[in-house]
């Protein structure tokens, strides 16, 4: 294992922990995006560029965007429900 691989493994472990520790869902989506990016660097360091490309676009862009949109929708619905009561 090279030093780069070891460093990326540690960074991914730290980023993953950070995702779990973050409690606010909106903030968590952004931390998850950073985690996704660090995972992509890990894949690149382990010579899997195809997977790294998928990981960048899905893990760092598409997934957090979907989470944010879903959150937005949930919050809107809660506001509406509260208003009706």
């Amino acid at each position: 294992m090279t030093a780069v691989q070891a460093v990326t493994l540690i960074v991914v472990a730290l980023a993953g922990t950070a995702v779990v520790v973050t409690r606010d869902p909106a903030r968590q989506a952004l931390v998850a995006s950073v985690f996704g990016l660090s995972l992509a660097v890990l894949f690149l360091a382990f010579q899997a560029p195809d997977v790294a490309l998928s990981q960048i676009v899905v893990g760092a862009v598409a997934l957090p965007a979907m989470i944010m949109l879903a959150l937005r929708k949930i919050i809107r619905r809660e506001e509406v429900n509260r208003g009706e009561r």
Partner: protein
Amino acid sequence: MSQRLRLLLFGAGALGLAVVLAWGFAGLPSFGDFDGRYGKVLAHSAVPQIKATSAVGATTLDYRGFDTLVEEFILFTAAVGVVVLLRVQRAEDEVPAEPEAVRRPTARSGSLRSVATALVGPVLLLGIDIVVHGHLTPGGGFQGGVILMTALFLIYLGGAHMNLGRLRPLGAMEASEGVGAAGFAVIGLGGMVIAGAYLENFIAPGAVGSLVSAGDLPLLNIAVGLEVMGALLVVLGEFLDQRLLMRKGQA
């Protein structure tokens, strides 16, 4: 259940998991030691057999083309499901929250808007590049398709609503999703008619390393790219539409 009993149960479970996990890890091959025969065969036959320098692309689209076909339809079905769910909800009890005339731009920060707008062109080109070189270099239809989706999403971040203004991509994206999914299946049929088996590579492979090579792989990559971009944008567009909607009586 008492606290003590719960802790005891958890302790036994955690211990069991730790033992099985340690046992499993002990049996793993050492780091970097790969002994998959199938993988080695594929890595050595991709260039001579299919004339594709990306062994991963040759595997996903040729040797394992049928898997990719089914995966494509999974994405297609998921996107259609989201659209059906959100549209039914909207028809029932929601109306547009903002009339078109008073609609605000999506991003208030000027720098965010200019950076997003400036990135649209380069990201679009990068996506196309990744799709059409899928059989030569890392990447391919899926990765390129998601990058293309990102490029169009940047238009939204740059201040224009997805389904409004001069660029009205949502209808085109639905078409792109359908054409991509159907294209893959139809190219497979071409293999059945010309080469005798479904998804069999039926186009002359050409010279190794050139843009038009590896038979039908570039076409399949383009089909997957269209499908992935379309499906993700349709889902995104539906969600973004929802953002602009609220229930009747609230507007």
